[in-house]
């Protein structure tokens, strides 16, 4: 079947080329300043992978300090230079490490690397579009991200160090250059970098939303969209509405830092002398920040959940359980994301009544989240599961999402949060539910769509080894952290010399265990990096539809050219999850196969749909007119 389709496409290709006269772009236009969504996606992915290794390496350095406080680190001097003093990590640099680890992972890896990669790659391919609504804005989006990356990366090499006030950069610590070395030039560069990053996300998000709404192929109604697209769509909506608020918070911070205003500053004494700033409020910054900060959690998580829906349904050979419930729950999460931000601020002295309102809203998020988890499990239930590496990572995501989500119910409680706030319990919670889960989604997506991206397969065995080491590693790192957190260890502390009851001593073993597990998990990612880069050039050649999937991207040729489909864009007649349909000859029916071609497997209401097929086909001219300039 695959070959037949290919030949048909080639025949079309000639006619198409004469019509539009596509010129083969030069190297720079093709690989560097490309407007092609697939190239931009790969640029995002590779930049994201490089950032992930930097972000991970930073965490290993501070894990060494936490797990082995007495270790002599002089051997790191060639890399870290003056940051190692007498065999010990400099205390200020430790703060810089946790700050940069958080910033890099949240924004550069799991926002740009995840959403940037897969929204760009999959939206046009899965909805049946030739490219994004605006290739130019899309290119700008990547290069703003690149610029922001360069600035952030440069700040790592400043003598005074990069920003060190935590990835949330709360004032007054971040607002006063004299507060700590990292609040000087490092902080300025952080703000510059993030401003460009916000511009990049907004340009990307506008493009994603516009493409999903405007450029769907004929027949692709909203209820026939794959769940990946729904997830990217909601992610873009979240970003579009929340990133501008971060920008407004950051601008006020810039004014406070550079122009002497006092939006966030009031009655501060340094060395016994009062600063002139009065009337500001540091809590205001937290409100504005978390109005982005909380949706950001879902900006990171939703794409991973969307990817998982797709990979699990494909490899369980079953339709996704509760397609509409999945959309509904994502919509619920999107709405709720905007009205729960203050649960990050329970201990800022806010009105307890307000606290209980935010607690209630926060706990409601458990409902759509549980619906999603339930639907993943019921999709797997009695499926003919094919354990590809992508599938393993998706199942891993479901596991992490549940075990990390359960502690969210505990932390969302404003009374319990008094005890647990800013302890390792929180660190364990969000690393499982948003960090590792999203990271697993990213990896699942890479393993699953690698054949479409590069026309080659990744090595399966290496994929399995990578999965098991990562899966066991992530749990070994973050599960013990819950106990450490309950024992009262605060996050972002350089060392624990003054805890009551010699707690440092009784938990020293556990901290060492976590550090060793972290090193193993991080090292295991080298297997992935090798597999990824090796397979780009030397991997086994992929077939057109290696996973027997139903969605449109697999109807393109193995090596997808500019414009995605050499001939006409296929029409869509059915939803994307017709797997193992009773009566059908094969266990999947692609979205572009009309009901009139499958009388043996149609349900009664689908037989009625046949009447509409002519209408769908009739839209071909209208669709083509969108692309004629």
């Amino acid at each position: 079947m695959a070959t037949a389709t290919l030949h048909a496409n080639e025949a079309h290709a000639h006619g198409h080329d004469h019509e539009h006269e596509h010129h083969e772009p030069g190297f720079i236009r093709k690989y560097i300043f490309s407007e092609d969504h697939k190239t931009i996606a790969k640029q995002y992915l590779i930049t994201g992978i490089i950032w992930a290794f930097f972000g991970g390496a930073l965490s290993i350095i501070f894990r060494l300090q936490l797990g082995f406080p007495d270790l002599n680190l002089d051997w790191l001097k060639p890399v870290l230079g003056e940051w190692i003093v007498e065999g010990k990590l400099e205390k200020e640099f430790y703060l810089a490490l946790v700050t940069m680890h958080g910033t890099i992972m949240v924004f550069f890896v799991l926002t740009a690397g995840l959403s940037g990669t897969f929204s760009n790659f999959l939206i046009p391919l899965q909805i049946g579009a030739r490219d994004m609504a605006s290739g130019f804005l899309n290119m700008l989006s990547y290069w703003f991200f690149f610029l922001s990356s360069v600035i952030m990366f440069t700040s790592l090499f400043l003598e005074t160090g990069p920003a060190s006030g935590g990835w949330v950069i709360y004032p007054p610590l971040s607002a006063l250059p004299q507060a700590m070395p990292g609040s000087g030039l490092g902080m300025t560069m952080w703000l510059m970098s993030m401003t460009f990053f916000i511009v990049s996300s907004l340009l990307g998000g506008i493009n994603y939303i516009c493409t999903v709404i405007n450029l769907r192929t004929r027949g692709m109604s909203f209820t026939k969209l794959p769940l990946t697209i729904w997830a990217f769509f909601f992610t873009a909506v979240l970003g579009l509405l929340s990133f501008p608020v971060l920008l407004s918070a950051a601008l006020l911070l810039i004014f406070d830092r550079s122009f002497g205003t006092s939006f966030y500053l009031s009655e501060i004494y340094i060395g016994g002398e009062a600063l002139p700033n009065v009337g500001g409020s540091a809590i205001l910054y937290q409100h504005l920040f978390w109005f982005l900060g909380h949706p950001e959690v879902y900006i990171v998580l939703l794409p991973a959940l969307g990817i998982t829906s797709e990979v699990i349904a494909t490899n369980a050979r079953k339709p996704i359980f509760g397609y509409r419930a999945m959309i509904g729950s994502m919509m619920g999460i999107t709405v709720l994301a905007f009205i729960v931000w203050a649960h990050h601020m329970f201990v800022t002295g806010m009105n307890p009544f307000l606290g209980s309102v935010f607690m209630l809203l926060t706990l409601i998020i458990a409902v759509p989240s549980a619906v999603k988890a339930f639907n993943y499990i019921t999709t797997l239930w009695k499926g003919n599961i094919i354990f590809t590496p992508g599938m393993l990572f998706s199942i891993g995501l479901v596991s992490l999402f549940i075990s990390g989500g359960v502690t969210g119910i505990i932390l969302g409680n404003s009374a319990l949060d008094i005890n647990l706030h800013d302890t390792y319990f929180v660190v364990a919670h969000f690393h499982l539910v948003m960090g590792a889960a999203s990271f697993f989604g990213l990896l699942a997506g890479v393993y699953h769509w690698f054949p479409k991206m590069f026309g080659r397969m990744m090595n399966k065995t290496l994929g399995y080894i990578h999965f098991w080491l990562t899966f066991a590693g992530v749990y070994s790192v973050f599960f013990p952290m819950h106990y450490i957190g309950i024992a009262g260890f605060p996050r972002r502390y350089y060392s624990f010399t003054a805890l009551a009851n010699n707690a440092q001593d009784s938990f020293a073993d556990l901290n060492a265990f976590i550090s060793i597990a972290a090193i193993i998990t991080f090292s295991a990612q080298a297997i992935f990096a090798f597999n990824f880069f090796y397979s780009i050039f030397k991997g086994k050649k992929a077939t057109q539809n290696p996973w027997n999937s139903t969605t449109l991207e697999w109807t393109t040729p193995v090596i997808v050219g500019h414009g995605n489909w050499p001939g006409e864009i296929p029409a869509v007649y059915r939803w994307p999850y017709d797997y193992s349909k009773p009566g059908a000859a094969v266990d999947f029916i692609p979205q572009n196969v009309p009901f009139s071609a499958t009388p043996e497997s149609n349900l009664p209401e689908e037989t009625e749909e046949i009447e509409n097929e002519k209408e769908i086909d009739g839209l071909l001219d209208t669709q083509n007119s969108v692309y004629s300039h």
Partner: protein
Amino acid sequence: MIQEHLKDIDLSEQPVKPMAMNPQKFMLWLGIASITMMFAGWTSGYLVQKAEGKWHEFELPSILMYSTAVLLVSSVFMHTALLAAKKDNFSLLKIAISITFVFGVAFLVMQVYGFSDLIAHKLYFAGSDVAASWIYVFVGLHGLHVVSGLIVLLVSLVSAFKHSIHANKLNRIQLCATYWHFLDLLWLYLFIFLYFNR
């Protein structure tokens, strides 16, 4: 196998149905949504800070009242220009869009005069008090957006004088008009907001 049945489908009937809205216009609306969120962030921040009590009552510079009127008038002429373009009435289009532009510039100049009025009352961007800083933020950052609006307007103005805007090519001026009306409404919101929440 199944896909070969695709050939059998009759393509003779072709109902015309618009797929969706113009992508550029849609993108503009999305951009407007994000700018709105940014200003919503600031105005809610203003309210939070005002509620904390360390606040000084202040008088808005009276020139802001007049500048608001000027901006409203420019919006009316923007609309006139759009209607003229739809009717291919080129002389009216040129006059109306020029007036819009001139009024837009006048608005900016008046906002800057508003700043000097504040300074005369010893209300500075930094160093006096937060309430004053907020006015500078609102007026200044809205002004920055008006500068971007004037650039867009200038592009349309040049196109109008080159006769490249007409009833069959309205996209550019429609985008321009939407953005300009939005900036007008945004200022109206900020002005009323400041007026009632001093």
